[in-house]
């Protein structure tokens, strides 16, 4: 598909040594994880030392990259080298709870850490809080970045974002969790007497009283007690959750970071992409461009759906000998119609965002299971191969 947009030059991006973080984002089900893996492999084979952080890969894709264990550490992917033995690929899957536990263990003395890990509120928070996954993805990204600069293990980190309700969650959730944990309500819960008595007006004190009262009613006093002891336990050991979240957020605004927004040529996914593009602009986060996956391939022959259908009808009247060609023409017409519709949707996006560079990846007949498949997607992303050549 030829889009009315500047070309997104994938190889230039991957070879730009000043870029050391690439974030792949977009709606659920558009192929984010596969795209992230394909970009990582391509970058490694062009000589970069890459670490790809995936959130929730399909089993076979994970196996293709040699990730049979979910142990929250980057593992070297075998069979990947760039020119003259340079370049390498590490891959890891995020274990959200493990990452959170490690943050606790790394920041508190053993006794206190154990108290936090045993706290029921912490356990609920670390395993099912809406946003913990996003927050931990950011936390892990921060950690990988630190490892990269201290040990020089890799010079490019490619991160896949969690399958959130909205792509924006990746940006918003850490801030939400951070401000939640540093917020006034939680402070009051952890020290009700101090909070309610000092420096706040009567009305506010009344409201806070009402608030704890209501929470007690709904949740029972045990929950509030758990929250209180959790906050008291982390208070002295953490430099503030919000600061941590802020630091990672700043990392995303850094000139060494680049975002790739991924979409499929259908309404919802493109709408989501548009939201994200707008948001990146607002927050001055650097956008490399749009990858449009699963595009119904067009093969550059000038045969419209209408022409093909008319010819098929003509042939069908001629009898059995012409059936094969008629069927081929009908198949072509069908693909052409889908292509036209997709092009129309894509053009609505490019018209609204004329300065966003873009590249397209044709819909593949089969899912990707191995490095060869990822390599092929890499070629397609960088327009180094036409889809035609694959079906020999």
């Amino acid at each position: 598909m030829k889009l009315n947009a500047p070309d997104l030059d994938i190889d230039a991006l991957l070879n730009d040594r000043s870029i050391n973080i690439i974030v792949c984002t977009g709606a659920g089900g558009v192929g984010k994880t596969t795209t992230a893996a394909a970009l990582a492999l391509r970058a490694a084979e062009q000589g970069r030392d890459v670490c790809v952080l995936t959130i929730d890969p399909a089993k076979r894709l994970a196996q293709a990259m040699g990730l049979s264990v979910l142990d929250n550490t980057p593992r070297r992917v075998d069979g990947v080298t760039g020119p003259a033995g340079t370049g390498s690929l590490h891959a890891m899957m995020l274990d959200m709870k493990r990452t959170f536990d490690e943050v606790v263990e790394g920041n508190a003395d053993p006794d206190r850490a154990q108290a936090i890990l045993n706290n029921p509120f912490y356990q609920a928070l670390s395993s099912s809080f809406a946003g913990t996954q996003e927050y931990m993805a950011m936390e892990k990204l921060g950690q990988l970045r630190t490892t990269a600069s201290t040990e020089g293990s890799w010079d490019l980190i490619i991160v896949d974002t969690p399958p959130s309700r909205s792509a924006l969650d990746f940006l918003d959730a850490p801030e939400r969790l951070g401000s939640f944990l540093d917020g006034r309500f939680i402070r009051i819960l952890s020290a009700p007497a101090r909070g309610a008595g000092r420096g706040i007006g009567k009305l506010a004190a009344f409201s806070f009283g009402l608030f704890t009262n209501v929470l007690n009613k709904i949740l029972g006093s045990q929950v509030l007690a758990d929250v209180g002891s959790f906050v008291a336990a982390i208070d002295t050991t953490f430099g503030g959750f919000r600061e941590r979240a802020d630091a990672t957020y700043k990392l995303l605004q850094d000139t060494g970071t680049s975002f790739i927004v991924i979409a499929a040529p259908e309404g919802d996914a493109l709408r989501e992409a548009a939201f994200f593009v707008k948001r990146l602009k607002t927050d001055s986060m650097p956008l490399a461009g749009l990858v449009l996956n699963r595009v119904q391939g067009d093969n550059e022959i000038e045969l419209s759906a209408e022409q093909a259908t008319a010819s098929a009808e003509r042939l069908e009247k001629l009898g059995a000998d012409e059936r094969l060609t008629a069927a081929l023409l009908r198949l072509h017409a069908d693909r052409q119609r889908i292509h036209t519709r997709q092009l129309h949707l894509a053009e609505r996006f490019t018209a609204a965002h004329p300065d966003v560079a873009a590249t397209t990846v044709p819909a593949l007949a089969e899912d990707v299971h191995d490095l060869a498949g990822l390599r092929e997607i890499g070629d397609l992303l960088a327009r180094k191969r036409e889809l035609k050549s694959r079906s020999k």
Partner: protein
Amino acid sequence: MTDVWWPGVALHVVSGKGGTGKTTVAAALALTLAHQGKRILLMEVEDRQGIAQLFDTAPLPYEERKIAVAPGGGEVWALAVTAQEALLDYLDTFYNLRRAGSVLRRMGAIDFATTIAPGLRDVLLTGKACEVVRRIEKRAPNAYSAIVLDAPPTGRITRFLNVNSEVSGLAKVGPIRNHADLVMSVISSPRTAVHLVTLLEEMPVQETIDAVGDLRSANLPVGGIFVNMTRPPMLTSRQLQAARSGTMSVVAIERSLNEAGLTGDSTVVTALMHEAHDHAVRVDLEARETARIVELGLPTFMLPLISEGIDLGGLYQLANLLRAGGVR
């Protein structure tokens, strides 16, 4: 005779991997159930306003609204639930605390409360659906015939519905615990059916199989599988075989194209043959994935790709197919 599916179910929960069209299927299911004068509530819980977009209306408020009529005079109503609104509702219903609720909301406390307890959000959301089910059971004047819940995606569905275990880690006793028990008694009963939407692709099918396993081990009632956006093979099995093995005759096709008045040069022939090969690979993959779905032994419904994109007309088309498949 066709089987009749789910006549006694009051709560239909629809989940599916992102991008499989679960909102579309939920809406089509609601239209199907609304057939012949019934009133169905279509409910969404993820702040996405997917229903409003699908029916091309203004964003839905926290208020039940009629959004479509079904053949035979039935009606589909819609409701978008947020955890905050559901909490205010809950406070009002059980504690008569609506005024206090609005003070708390202004303080940001409602937002905080629905955030503080990870399970609380889900209990409140599923609780709202169960409240509608209880209306049905009490035969209340404003009762619907059934409710269709456009639920979170497959990756989160079991946790979302299994509120009991979610809350148990948090609250061993107390009102929210009792509320969770009440919700659970509806969700795990035969009055509920959890449906899964998939595409004939490897990842969505795998997620569907995993979700069925998870739901079954949590003792949640699995309903049917809705295979969305299917496309019939456009070539006969013999033609597919030829396409697969590359044994189509270039000369014959070129001659036919000329016959049809097209300049059948070799680039056109090659392009058409590539398309046929791709199509054959795709058909094979779909057959493999279909077999994996059949193995689940669940009622399965095939819904075609509506190539013009989904609008109200498309939804009626899908609803007719579901009805023909025995969905009541």
